[in-house]
């Protein structure tokens, strides 16, 4: 009798533990949380690797289709026969479809990369996700209408439309890259500010301490205050540079050459990073002063 009750209870407990693990893996982070939990990161990593593999495969397929297109094109230009024209049409169509697939898979990679990035707000991720999906839809619809182009000239016109759209896609990708880079700086800024606040509280406690064994030399207190002040100054400068980069987003979305604008934004962010390095070394000195007599 006891065995009959114990065994089912044990099996139910086992099932319960397994389900609990599955449920926790499916939890999503809240919109305001800028960090990633381990389980979400693991799932996203797997998805990211999958889209990356698909992108690489589509790129290889496109390269082969492009070589075939070049061969058929040169044959058609040389011989100008009907057969050559048909072969050239077929090869061009396949190449254009493969090219669209590459762009769609690239946008998938971009999307996953964006969602893995730390420090990017939920609203920004959402907005960029909508923009990425719009681009994907355009290329997928373009792939659907390509076979209806009956002549080579129509294919060339369709290709030119895709070319114009690709310029816009590139600008979107540079915008995504900027927000990912800005997210890294933002997460560093928040973490460093948190450490500075904790050290300032600690300094306040030590300064107001009345027990002689817990008091530090006034020179040490002065050094600590100086380092904290220097850290705050550098944090202010880093924030100003981050803001300067942010102001160029409008210029990026309207520019012809997104890469040059993105590069200039990255330079500002890299300068911020340098200030953060200095803040890190100052805060280390503060801790050294607190730990030594």
């Amino acid at each position: 009798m006891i065995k009959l009750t114990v065994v089912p209870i044990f099996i139910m407990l086992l099932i319960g533990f397994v389900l609990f693990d599955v449920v926790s893996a499916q939890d999503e982070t809240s919109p305001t949380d800028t960090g990633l939990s381990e389980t979400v990161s693991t799932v996203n990593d797997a998805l990211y690797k999958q889209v990356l593999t698909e992108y690489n495969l589509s790129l290889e397929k496109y390269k082969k289709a492009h070589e075939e297109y070049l061969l058929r094109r040169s044959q058609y230009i040389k011989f100008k026969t009907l057969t050559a024209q048909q072969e050239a049409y077929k090869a061009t169509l396949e190449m254009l479809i493969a090219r669209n697939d590459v762009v769609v898979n690239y946008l998938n990679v971009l999307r996953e990369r964006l969602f893995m990035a730390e420090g990017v707000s939920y609203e920004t991720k959402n907005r960029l996700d909508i923009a990425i999906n719009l681009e994907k839809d355009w290329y997928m619809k373009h792939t659907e209408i390509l076979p209806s182009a009956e002549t080579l000239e129509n294919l060339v016109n369709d290709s030119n439309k895709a070319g114009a759209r690709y310029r816009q896609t590139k600008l979107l990708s540079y915008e995504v890259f900027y927000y990912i880079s800005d997210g890294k700086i933002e997460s560093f800024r928040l973490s460093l500010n948190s450490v500075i606040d904790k050290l300032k509280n600690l300094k306040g406690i030590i300064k107001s301490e009345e027990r002689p064994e817990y008091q530090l030399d006034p020179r040490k207190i002065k050094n600590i205050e100086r380092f904290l002040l220097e850290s705050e100054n550098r944090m202010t400068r880093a924030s100003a540079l981050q803001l300067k980069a942010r102001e160029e987003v409008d210029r990026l979305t309207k520019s012809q050459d997104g890469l040059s604008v993105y590069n200039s934004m990255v330079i500002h962010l890299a300068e911020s990073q340098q200030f953060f390095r200095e803040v890190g070394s100052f805060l280390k000195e503060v801790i050294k002063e607190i730990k030594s007599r």
Partner: protein
Amino acid sequence: MDKVSQFFSDWVNMLMGKSGSSLKTFYGVKSEDIKSADADNPINSDIKKVKEVLEKIISFVEEKIRHALLHVNKKNGFDFVQVVNQLFAKVENSFKLTLVKKILIGLLTLFVIIFTTGLILNLFLKSDVKQNVLTSLEKTPTSMQLEYRPIQNSIYADDKNILMLEEELSILVKQIDSTNIREKAFMPPDLDFSIDF
């Protein structure tokens, strides 16, 4: 001494493309052979050409100076020309020889100085007095010697919160140092949009 000076003069002449008589007899070579060898040697012919050009330039300059001085002479009644001619003659004849002499004397003097200095230093280093001075210098304490003072920990050195904060900061600093801000890996792919037939 005259033979020595003659020898050096001939050596310099040899360098400049002229064959010296003393060197001829030293090496046992006939003058006709030397002249024919000189004529065949392209380097000697090049040196001769350069010398001819230099001589022409010098004579041209000399002529100009003489004309100028003659003109001055007429005005002032003092024979500059004779003085300059004598000067030029002296310089031309003895310049090369004195130059060589001076160089050799200079080199010899330098060698003697170096040798003497080395001898003196060697004697000085070997002396016991020097040894004693050196050892006494080593023993004398100087103000540059620093005493090692180990850092003393405060009461906060073992505080858990401070240690955790230090660890957090250390990880953050490493992250900041190692992070590449630029997204290099996934630039848009380079696709061919220039389709035409």
